[in-house]
């Protein structure tokens, strides 16, 4: 079970949060120009690294705000949390 440091509320238990998958996945800038393969990539393909992963969480039982987190999927170590719109921090 994770102790997640919400950027607004501070450390809270994982059960207060909702998981939102990979962070920084932008909607296509020009959707009409995408090929089927490019749509497939946007809709169905997400990174699945064994290691640091930038992902979205929502503090649903607290401030109800979304934020981003870099967590290691092999160890559960939380490297960083940051607010939407902020760039992904460089982590070791």
């Amino acid at each position, binding site marked *: *079970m*994770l102790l997640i440091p919400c950027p607004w509320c501070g450390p809270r238990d*994982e*059960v207060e949060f*909702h*998981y939102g*998958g990979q962070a920084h996945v932008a909607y296509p800038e020009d959707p009409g120009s995408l090929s*089927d*393969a490019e*749509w*497939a990539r946007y*809709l*169905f*393909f*997400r990174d*699945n*690294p*064994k290691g640091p*992963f930038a*992902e979205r969480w929502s503090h649903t039982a607290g401030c109800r705000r979304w934020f981003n987190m870099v*967590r290691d*999927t*092999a*160890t*559960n170590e939380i490297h960083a949390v940051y607010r939407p719109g902020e760039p992904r921090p460089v982590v070791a």
Partner: protein
Amino acid sequence: MSAHDPADGLPEHPERLWSSPEPERSYDVVIVGGGGHGLATAYYLARNHGITNVAVLEKGWLAGGNMARNTTIIRSNYLWDESAGIYEHALKLWEGLEDDLGYPLLFSQRGVLNLAHSLQDVREGVRRVNANRLNGVDAEWLDPGEVGEVCPIVNVSPDVRHPVLGATYQPRAGIAKHDHVAWGFARAAAAMGVHLIEHCEVTGIDVEGGRVRAVQTTRGRIAAGRVALCAAGHSSVVAGLAGVELPLQSHSLQALVSDLLEPVHPTVVMSNAVHVYVSQAHKGELVMGAGIDACNSYRQRGAFHIIERQMAAALELFPVFARAHVLRTWGGVVDVSPDASPVVGLTPVDDLYVNCGWGTGGFKATPGVGWCFAHTVAHGEPHPLNAPFSLERFTTGALVDEHGAAAVAH
């Protein structure tokens, strides 16, 4: 053993089930992953296609990953024709597998109930029963009273938070002893000349001119005419070594067992809505599975709050379990696809084949996917039963959406 030992009836093993050869420098086929699917693929490559110059490479020990961590449920009551094709093919193979392998698997066709707790569950269940029957899969719809007759310890009272409104029932479904399944395939494959190589992690895949040539391993480079990936939860990582991206997300999937009990649970019960699935192992443990942990993970352990929810669901459905003790919990790493169906077939790299994305339900498919994937690797084109499960379906849109029948929340 005393006459009352719950382990009575468990078979004795031969002293040695397979040899442990040094890896050769080259094989016709290298299978990456020595779990149930890798071993079954090796077995059917040898048995059905006469291809025996095969190595199965396993980074740990044989069948020590998800094969050792699953809840051993076997069924074929999926919704769509494509799924019925491959899962029912598997179930028919299960029904003759002990004789085929010459090895006891404790395959027990004790039936599976999928409970309905809402009107929508009822409609989905009845629809699936009808779809199953049209596909020649045995299926019945049971009302709550009939559920109580099949499994008397299920609480079918209307006075609970999520009352049982009925269930689908597949009488031919059941369980098998997972370790024996792996050992049976391993023994039979090794007897036909397949090399089973443990503690041999694949660290690279050599691709030249768009064609796979070799794998790099912790025990050196091994050239390969063809490479077949059966790495389950780590499929994204392994395929990535060849530059192939897969539409998968890896998650922990947890399960637990109770201490040994007298026989109390005659069938298998699954409940998608409240989220638990339960059977009683041959030895007497209650085997209970949960849903996946939400966040991506390669850790073979999960979060405790998932188990809390699972136990709450179990206790409501089975009040008798209140007296049981949790003996141990564990997690496997499952690779989940966007439509809750597997990805089996060719890749953009020639002679590199992939079998992955089985998510929470790979065990039941073991002989069926081994059969079909061996055909795919041997002929360089998909077996008709796994042709619908190609990577291309995510581009064409011909998805096989089994989220409802997959029964585990993911």
